[in-house]
C-alpha cells in the first residue's frame, strides 16, 4: 500500500530537513523524500558560514531569526555552532561607503555590526595581511556551523518527533488531478499526499515541471567550488573572513581545524560538479593574498556544490497558486544553509497558518513574473 502523509517534502538538504523537523515539532504528519542521502545535494558541500550582514531589511531580519534558532538548536542538540563573527575586509572608500549603508540597515534591526580599523581586524585574525586594508565590517554575532552534524541532528530529531525521512528515494513525477495534488511517484513507489513542498534548490525547476507549474521561477544551478586544507591549531582563523578585492574570497576554520572556503569563481548554469584545476590555482592565489601563512598548508581536496541562483540572488519561498497546496523554498543562491532554520519556521507558518511574521513577501516566487526583482543580495560565503 502506498504511504500517505499530509505534507510531503521533496529534497533532503538542510532546508527540507529543517522544515520536516519544524513541522514534526508542530505535530504535523510529514514525509521527506531524498534521492541520494541527507545533505548530499548542496548542504554537505557548503562553506559553513552563517551571517546577518546583508544589504536589505528582509534578509537581515530573516538571518537574525535564523541565528537565534541556530543558537537554540545547537545548544539543544549538541552540534557545533560558533558565533565567531564575519569580517569583511575593505580596501577602498567606495567599499567602505557601501558597507556603511549596509551597517545602518543591520543596526536598525539589532544586528551589532560596526566598522573597525585594520589593526582591530588583525587582532581578531592575527594571520591577516592588512597592508592594503583600510577598514573592516565586523559583526561578532555572525558565525558558522558544522553542516554534517547539524543536518544529521535535525534529521534525527525530526524522526524522533514522527517525521518519516526516506533516503535513496527519487521523485519521478507528481500526480496532479484537477489542480489538486494526489501524490508523488518515486523510485520506491507511490507516496500519497495533499501538500507538496519543493525544497530541492538546484533541482527546483525539474520538480516544478513535474507538477506542471508554468509560473516563471528562474532558478538555475551554478557550479561553485570550495577547498579545504589540513587541520591547523584551533582558533587560528575564528571568523569568516571575506575579501571582495581578492577574488570575492571567503575563508574560515572549521570546528575540525581545516581552513575551508571559496572564491567568486563559478560556472553555469550546469549540473556538472567536477572540481576544476583553475579553481585550485585561483583559490590558492587569493587565499594567500589575504593570509600569506596559508601558503604553507597542504590542500586536502576541492569539491563543488550548487549555488541555485535566481536573478536577484534571493530565494523563491512561498505558495504557488497554479496547483493547490504546492509550496516552494528554493533558489537560495548560496545562502540555503545559513537561512534554513528561519526558512523552516517561515514555511511551517505558511503551510499550517497561511501567514508568518517573518518577511516572506520579499521572497515572493511571483516577483520574477511581475518583473519586481529585489536588491541583489550580497552573495558571499
Amino acid at each position, binding site marked *: 500500500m502506498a504511504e500517505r502523509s499530509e505534507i510531503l517534502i521533496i529534497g533532503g538538504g538542510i532546508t527540507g530537513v529543517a522544515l520536516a523537523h519544524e513541522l514534526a515539532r508542530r505535530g504535523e504528519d510529514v514525509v521527506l523524500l531524498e534521492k541520494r542521502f541527507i545533505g548530499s545535494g548542496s548542504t554537505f558541500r557548503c562553506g559553513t558560514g552563517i551571517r546577518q550582514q546583508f544589504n536589505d531589511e528582509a534578509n537581515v531580519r530573516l538571518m537574525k531569526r535564523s541565528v537565534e534558532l541556530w543558537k537554540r538548536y545547537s545548544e539543544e542538540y549538541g552540534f557545533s555552532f560558533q558565533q565567531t563573527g564575519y569580517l569583511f575586509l575593505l580596501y577602498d572608500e567606495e567599499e567602505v561607503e557601501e558597507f556603511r549603508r549596509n551597517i545602518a540597515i543591520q543596526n536598525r534591526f539589532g544586528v551589532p555590526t560596526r566598522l573597525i580599523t585594520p589593526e582591530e581586524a588583525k587582532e581578531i585574525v592575527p594571520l591577516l595581511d592588512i597592508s592594503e586594508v583600510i577598514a573592516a565590517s565586523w559583526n561578532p554575532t555572525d558565525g558558522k556551523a558544522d553542516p554534517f552534524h547539524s543536518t544529521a541532528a535535525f534529521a534525527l530529531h525530526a524522526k524522533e518527533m514522527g517525521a518519516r525521512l526516506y533516503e535513496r528515494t527519487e521523485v519521478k513525477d507528481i500526480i496532479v488531478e484537477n489542480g489538486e495534488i494526489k501524490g508523488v511517484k518515486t523510485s520506491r513507489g507511490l507516496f500519497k499526499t495533499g501538500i507538496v513542498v519543493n525544497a530541492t534548490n538546484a533541482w527546483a525547476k525539474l520538480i516544478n515541471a513535474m507538477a506542471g507549474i508554468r509560473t516563471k521561477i528562474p532558478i538555475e544551478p551554478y557550479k561553485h567550488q570550495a577547498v579545504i586544507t589540513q*587541520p591547523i591549531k584551533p582558533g587560528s582563523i575564528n571568523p569568516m573572513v571575506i575579501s571582495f578585492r581578492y577574488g570575492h574570497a571567503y575563508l574560515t576554520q572549521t570546528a575540525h581545524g581545516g581552513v575551508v572556503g571559496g572564491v567568486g569563481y563559478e560556472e553555469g548554469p550546469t549540473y556538472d560538479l567536477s572540481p576544476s584545476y583553475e579553481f585550485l590555482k585561483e583559490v590558492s592565489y587569493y587565499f594567500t593574498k589575504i593570509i600569506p601563512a596559508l601558503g604553507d598548508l597542504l590542500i586536502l581536496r576541492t569539491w563543488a556544490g550548487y549555488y541555485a541562483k535566481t536573478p536577484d540572488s534571493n530565494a523563491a519561498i512561498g505558495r504557488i497558486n497554479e496547483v493547490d497546496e504546492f509550496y516552494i523554498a528554493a533558489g537560495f543562491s548560496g545562502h540555503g544553509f545559513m537561512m534554513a532554520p528561519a526558512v523552516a519556521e517561515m514555511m511551517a507558518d505558511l503551510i499550517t497558518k497561511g501567514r508568518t511574521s517573518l518577511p516572506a513577501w520579499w521572497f515572493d516566487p511571483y516577483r520574477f513574473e511581475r518583473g519586481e526583482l529585489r536588491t541583489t543580495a550580497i552573495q558571499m560565503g
Partner: protein
Amino acid sequence: MRPLDLTEKDPSKKITIYFEGKAYEAYEGEKIAVALLANGVYWLTTSTEGRKRGAFYFGPLPMVINGVKNTDGRKTPAKEGMRIERQNYGEFQEDVRIDEEKPLLRYVVDVAVIGAGPAGLGAVLEMQEHLTVALIEERSWLGGDFWLKGIRQEGFDGEPQEVISGMRAKFNQNVRLLLKTSALGVFDEGEYFLIPAVRGNQLIEILAKRVVLATGAVDNILLFENNDMPGVFRRAFALEVMNLWGVAPGRKVAVVGSRPEEMTVELERWGIDYVVVPNPKRAEGKESVERLIDMNGNTYEVDAVIVADGRRPDINPITQAGGRLRFRRGYYMPVLDAYHRIREGIYAAGSAVSIKPHYANYIEGRLAGARILKEFSFDAEPCIYEEKLREYEPEAVPLHRIESGSMNLEDVQICGCDVSLKKVHDAVESGISDLQIIKRLTHLAMGFCQGRFCLFNGALLVSQKTGVDMARIDLPVARPPIKNVRMKAVARRD
C-alpha cells in the same frame, strides 16, 4: 654502524644531525625518518589528539626542520648539522614566501604515464619509439613496489634493481622522466588532458592526448590496538628501509597480516629475528613498540611490527579521473572497457587495475601502450599481451573480520587522522548505514590520505555490521588534488 644499520654506509657521507637537541649519526642524502630509525628513534611527530607517531604506518610526518615547521620528514634528506624536532600535526609555518614569479613548467606530449612501476615502464617502453611520453613518478626511484623487493620475481630475468636499471637504460629521446613529481589529477582540456603535478613546490603542467594510470596499489591497513604506534610498519615502508636504505625495522620484529611470507623471505635474507603473529590484538610501549599481544593473550617482546597484509588498487586516481569501480576478489577495481580504458583517452594498467605479479603488471603496461599505439595508427599487437596477461589470474585479497567485540576500539586507529575505530563503529551502531554519512560525521577519508588507507576498512565495517554487500556501498569519489599539495605551490593565475 648504527644500532639498526644492516649495511655499512659510505664513510665519506657521514654527518651529524640533531634530533630534539641530541646528536645522531646520519649519512648525507638519507631521508630523515630513515636516519633516525637507524639510530633506533621511532617517535617523530604527534597527531592532533596527541598520539605519538612514527614515519612508517599512516598519517603525515610533519617535523620542525632547521626551525621550519610542517616539513615532511619522509621526504627531506639529511644534511650536516640539521636540527630536527617533533611537532604536533596542527602546527604550521607562519612566515611563508610565495613566489608568484617562479616560472611554471609546461610539457606537451602524446601520452602521460602516471606511475613508474612495472606497468608504467611497460607502457613507456612499448610506446617510446613512436610517441612522446611524460613519465610521472612520485618517488625517487623507478620500479615502484617491484624495486623494493630484494629477491627475484617471477617472469623477470634478474634481480629487481637490475631489471629496472636495464629498462631505464633503454629509454630514448621521446621519454621525459619526472621523478619525485606528484600528479594532482587528470582534467579534461579539449583534445588534451591536463595533468598538473608538483615537484617540491614547482608546479608543472603536462598536456597529453592520452593518459595511462599506472598508479599502483596501496598497502592494506590492519586494525589492532595502537596500530598507529611508532615502530609499526606498513609492508612497503618495511621493504624500503631494508632494501633501499639498508636499515632494519627493528632488532626483533613481529610480522602480522595475511601475507607474512612476502616479508619473512626478506627478513631472513637480512638475518633479522622475527615472529609471525597471525592475530594481533594490541601493540604496547612507552614511546614505540615494546611488545605485541595477540588475541589469545600471548605476549611477544618485539621492537617493531610489520603489517604484511597485501595491497589493494589505489582507487583515488581512478575515481578522480572519472572511472567507475566494481568490487571483485576482495577489492574495488576500475571498470575497464574493451580497450583497457576507464573512459575515452584514459587507460589503466598494473596493480591500479588488479593485484597480480609484477611481471603481469609489466605486461599490462605493455598492453595499454600497444592499444595507444594503435589509436595513433602505428603497428602494434595488443593481442599478444592480452593473451599473455590471461595466464595471470589476479589474486584474491582476503576480507578480515573486524573483531570489534574483542578490542578496545578507542585505541584502534582506522585512519591516521585521529579517527578511531570507535568513532566509526559508534556511528554504525547508532543506525547510520550509509558510508557517505559516516564519512562526514567521523571525518573518515577526509584527511591527509583522502581515504586511500582508511576508506576500505570503513566500507568493510559498514558491510559487516549492516550486511550490505561491499559492491553496493556508495563509495565517495576522490576529489582533486589526488595528492596533498602546498597552497603556495599552486597559488598563481596563469
